[in-house]
C-alpha cells in the first residue's frame, strides 16, 4: 500500500474527487497558481483550469457565501480558508446560513459544501496562525465537523465530506501536513462520518483525542505502557456528530476517562465529551472525568518558550494518565 504524507493524501483526494465528479469546484485564497499556501491544492489549477479552481479575492465571507449559493445551484464547492484563524469573517455565513438553510426551508434547500482549513499550533504561528476553532462549530446543529489524524482517514473522511449533502467543516492540523505519513490505498474507499476509531486498545484508562492530539495520545499511551498502565486511545475523527457509542463503550470498560484537546480548556470541545461521559457512564466511573487542554489565554503566543508552555504535549498527557490511573 503506498505511503503518503497527510497533505499528499488530501491533495490527491481533491484531484481524484474532481475527476470523478465535475460538479466539484475548489475555491479560496491562493488555491490556484500557487496551489495554496501549504500546497494542499497544488496541481489542481493546472489540471482543472480557472473555472473549477478559483483564486478568490481576500474575503472569507464571500468564499463561504458564494459556495452556499453555488451548492444551491448544483455545484459541490470545496472551499479553503487559508488558516482556520481566518474563518471568523465567514462566521455568519456558516452559522446563520449554511447550517440552517435545510432546517429553515423544511428540506427545500441543502448545502453540500466542504470547508477545509488548516488549524493548530506548535508551528510558530502565534495567536493568529495556530488556533483550534472547532468548538465554535461543533455546537451548531446543521454542521458536521471532521478532524482527521492519519493520511488514511484524511482521504476517507474528505471523500465522505465532499459527497455529503450537508456542510462539513474539515480541519487539518498543519503540523501534521508533512510530519505525518501513513498507508493510503488507491482504492475508492470512504471513512464514514460520525465513527470514532480505537487506535490503541487498552483496559485501564480511556484517552479521547483528535487531530494532532490523537498522535500525542498514542505517544503518551506508549510511555505509560512502559510503567504498566494500559491505555485505550479513542480517536474521534468526527466531532459532530460525535460517536457517543464508541466513547461510552470504552469508558464503561476502563472506568477512567481523560479527554485531550489543544484548544483552551474552558468551553472547548472536550467539555461536551466530558459532560456526556459524566452523565452517561456515571455508574462505571472509577475516577473523575479529567481533561488536558490549552491554557486560558486568547491564542498561542509566538516565542518558542511561550509556545511550548501553551502546547499540550505527550508528556503532559502521560502525566494526566498517570494521575488518573493512580486515582
Amino acid at each position: 500500500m503506498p505511503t503518503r504524507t497527510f497533505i499528499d493524501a488530501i491533495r490527491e483526494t481533491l484531484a481524484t474527487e474532481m475527476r470523478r465528479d465535475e460538479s466539484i469546484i475548489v475555491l479560496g485564497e491562493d488555491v490556484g497558481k500557487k496551489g495554496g499556501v501549504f500546497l494542499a491544492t497544488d496541481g489542481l489549477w493546472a489540471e482543472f483550469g480557472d473555472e473549477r479552481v478559483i483564486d478568490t479575492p481576500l474575503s472569507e465571507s464571500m468564499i463561504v457565501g458564494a459556495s452556499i449559493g453555488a451548492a444551491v445551484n448544483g455545484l459541490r464547492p470545496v472551499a479553503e480558508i487559508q488558516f482556520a484563524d481566518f474563518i471568523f469573517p465567514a462566521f455568519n455565513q456558516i452559522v446563520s446560513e449554511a447550517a440552517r438553510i435545510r432546517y429553515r426551508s423544511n428540506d427545500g434547500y441543502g448545502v453540500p459544501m466542504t470547508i477545509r482549513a488548516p488549524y493548530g499550533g506548535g508551528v510558530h504561528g502565534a495567536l493568529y496562525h495556530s488556533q483550534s476553532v472547532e468548538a465554535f462549530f461543533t455546537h451548531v446543529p446543521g454542521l458536521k465537523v471532521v478532524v482527521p489524524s492519519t493520511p488514511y482517514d484524511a482521504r476517507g473522511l474528505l471523500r465522505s465530506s465532499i459527497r455529503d449533502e450537508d456542510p462539513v467543516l474539515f480541519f487539518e492540523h498543519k503540523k501534521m501536513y508533512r510530519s505525518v505519513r501513513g498507508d493510503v490505498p488507491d482504492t475508492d474507499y470512504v471513512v464514514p462520518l460520525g465513527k470514532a476509531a480505537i487506535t490503541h486498545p487498552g483496559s485501564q484508562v480511556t484517552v479521547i483525542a483528535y487531530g494532532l492530539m490523537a498522535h500525542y495520545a498514542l505517544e503518551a499511551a506508549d510511555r505509560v505502557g512502559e510503567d504498566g498502565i494500559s491505555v485505550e486511545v479513542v480517536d474521534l475523527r468526527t466531532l459532530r456528530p460525535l460517536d457517543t457509542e464508541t466513547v461510552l463503550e470504552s469508558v464503561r470498560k476502563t472506568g477512567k476517562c481523560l479527554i485531550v484537546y489543544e484548544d483552551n480548556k474552558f468551553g472547548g470541545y472536550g467539555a461536551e465529551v466530558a459532560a456526556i461521559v459524566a452523565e452517561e457512564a456515571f455508574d462505571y466511573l472509577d475516577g473523575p472525568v479529567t481533561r488536558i487542554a490549552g491554557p486560558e489565554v486568547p491564542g498561542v503566543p509566538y516565542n518558542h518558550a511561550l509556545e511550548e508552555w501553551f502546547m499540550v504535549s505527550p508528556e503532559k498527557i502521560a502525566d494526566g494518565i498517570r494521575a488518573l490511573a493512580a486515582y
Partner: protein
Amino acid sequence: MAATTRSDTRPATSDLAASVGLVDADLVEMYRYVALARALDERMWILNRAGRIPFVISGQGHEGAQVGIAWPFQRGHDWIAPFYRSIATCLTFGMSPRDILTAQYATATDPSSGGRQMPGHYGSRQHNLVSVSSPVATQLLHAVGIALAAKIRRTGQVAMTSMGEGSSNQGDVHEGLNFAAIHKLPFVFVVENNGYAISVPAARQVSVPNVADRASGYGIPGIVVDGVDVLACYVAARDAVARARAGQGPTLIEAKVTRLTGHSSDDQQTKYRSAEELEAELKRDALPAFRAQLIEAEILTEAIEASIAAKIAADVEDATDYAESQPDPDPATALHHVYAGDAGDGPDVAPDADSATETSD
C-alpha cells in the same frame, strides 16, 4: 414570462406597451400582481389586528418596483434571493397567495418553511426562490454563488437579489459585488430604497445620495429608477437581465420606493416620522400611479379592472380560508431536516397540490 413569448396571434399592443417592448396583456398582468400583493398585504394587517397572526412585515409601497423588476426574469429558470418585503416579487415569480398566507399562519403546509420561520421569510425550491433568513444581506452572496454556478454549468440562468438600502451597508455586499464584477457573473443586485432602515433615515445609513452611486466602485452599471414607475423598473431590469445573459456582468438597480407602513407590526413609525412626511409619501405609491397610467393608456378598462378586482378578492379570500384551515406542524417532526435524510427527503407535510400554484390563474 412576457405574454409575447406565449402568444401565437398578434396581441393588443398600445403605444405604452410598445414603448417598453411588451403587449397590453403583460401590463394588465403586472398590474394584477401589484394589486394582488397589496390586497394580500392589507389582509395580513387585518388578520394581525384581529389577533389571528402575531406578526406582519409588509411590502406596501414596494410592490410596483418588485413586479416591474421581477418581470423580465424567467420563472422556473432564473433565480431570485428575495428579502422579507418581497411579497410581490415572490408572487410574480410563482408563489401563490396560499403560499404567502400559510407562511403568516406558520402552518405545516407553509411551503417556505413548514411553519418554522417567521412570516416574511419566504422561499420555494420549486420556484427558484432562495429561502429568506433574517440576518440581512447574506442572501447577496448566495445569489452571487448561484450566478457563479450558472456560469460554470453554462445554464444561461441569471440570479437576482434584493434588499433595503440599510442592508446594503453590510460587508457581504462589498465582498459579493467585487467578486461578481471580477468574474462578470450573471447577477442583478436590486436595492429597494424606502428611505428608512427601521427608524434610521437613509442619510444616516448611506454616505452617498444613492446606493447606485456605489456601482462604479465595482466597475458595474448603477441605475436609479423611480419605484413609482413600474415600467421604468421593468426596463431597468430587462436591460440588466440582457447584460447578464450576454456575459457582460452584474448591474445594480436602485428603486426609490416608499414604506407605507411601520417597519413591521412591532413598530410605531410616528415616533420618528412626521405626519407631513407620512402624508407626502402617500403620493409615492405605485399602485394608484400605475392604475392611472394604464387607464390613461386605455389598457385598463373598467371591465378588466372589475374582473381583476374580483379575482384578487377571491384569491385573498381563498388563501385566508385555506391558511386558516391548515394544521400546525407536528412537534414530532421538529427534529427533522437538520441534516439530509433525517426523516426521508422533502417536507414533512406535502403542501396540497392546489396550494403550490395560483388558485385562480
